[in-house]
C-alpha cells in the first residue's frame, strides 16, 4: 500500500453526511438494502445528531464568501461550520486572540 497524498482535501461534516445520503443511508431504517456498511452507518448516525444535518451546500458557500474579509484560517472556518456557535462564549475556544 502506498500513500500518494495523505491530505487530498478537507471535508466538512456536511459533505460527509451528503456522501452517505447520496448512497441512500437516510431512507432505509434497517440499512440492509443501502450501499452503506454498518460502521459507516454509525458515522451517519453521529452526523445526523450534529448541526450538519440542517445545513445545505449554499449556506456553506455563502459563509465562506462572507468570511473572506475577516481573513480567518481554514481550520477556524471549518470549526465554525461544524459547530455553528450561536454566542460569543462559544466562539472563544475556536479562534485564538479573539476580540
Amino acid at each position: 500500500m502506498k500513500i500518494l497524498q495523505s491530505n487530498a482535501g478537507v471535508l466538512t461534516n456536511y459533505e460527509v453526511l451528503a456522501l452517505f445520503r447520496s448512497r441512500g443511508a437516510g431512507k432505509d431504517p434497517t440499512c440492509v438494502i443501502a450501499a452503506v456498511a454498518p460502521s459507516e452507518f454509525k458515522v451517519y448516525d453521529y452526523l445526523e445528531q450534529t448541526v450538519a444535518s440542517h445545513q445545505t451546500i449554499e449556506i456553506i458557500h455563502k459563509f465562506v464568501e462572507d468570511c473572506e474579509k475577516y481573513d480567518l484560517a481554514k481550520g477556524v472556518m471549518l470549526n465554525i461550520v461544524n459547530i455553528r456557535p450561536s454566542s460569543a462564549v462559544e466562539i472563544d475556544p475556536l479562534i485564538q486572540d479573539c476580540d
Partner: protein
Amino acid sequence: MFVMSEIEHTLRLPPHLLNLPLNVAIKGELESLFLDKVIDKLGLCVSVYDILSIDGGFIFPGDGASTYTARFRLVMFRPYVGEVISARLKESTKNGLRLSLGFFGDIYVLVPLMPNPYHTEPDPEHKNGIKWVWEYMGENYPIDWTDEIRFRVHSVSYPPIPIEQGIDSEQNDSEEKDLRQKDLKPFAPMVITGSLDADGLGPTAWWV
C-alpha cells in the same frame, strides 16, 4: 474532522467476484480491507470516496485470481489539533473522562486538562465512577451523563501495536489470570487526548 487521503494499493480479486462489474468488485474488496481500520498517521478510515484508476489485471502463475493496482481516495477521520468536537460521556473515573462519538470511543480527557478549579464526588450510580464538578464564581457545575460535551483536540497519537506476551507456564491460578486480563484495556490503535480547559468547552448546558 474528516480528511480525504489518496492511496495506491495492489490487491488480489478473489475469483468468486468475477461476475460483478470490475469497479463494484474492487470497491467491495477495498471496503473489506480498509473500512473501520486505523492507518498510521492517516487516521480511521470511514469510507471509500471514489476510485481514481484501476490498472493491471495480471494473473500470476499458480494463482486463480487476478491482481489489480488501484488508486482511490478514502475518507479518513483525522481531527487536527485545535479542533472542537461534540461528544458524549462514556466513562468518568478518577483519571479523567472518556468520551465517545459513537463510531470512535477512545477520546480521553485527563486530569490536568479538566477545567480548573474543580472537585470530585463519588458517583452513586456507577461502580468506581467519579462525578466531576467545576467550581466557578461560587457555582457548582457538574458533568452529567446526558450532556453533549464539547472538547478541543489536544493531541492525536497512534500507539504501536503491542507484542504478544508469552504464556506464563507457572501460572496455575486461572482466577488470577482472568483478573489480570480483565484489567487490561483492549488495545486502541488511535487515541485522542482532549482538553476541556477553556471558555465554551465542556457540556453545552453550561454555556447556553
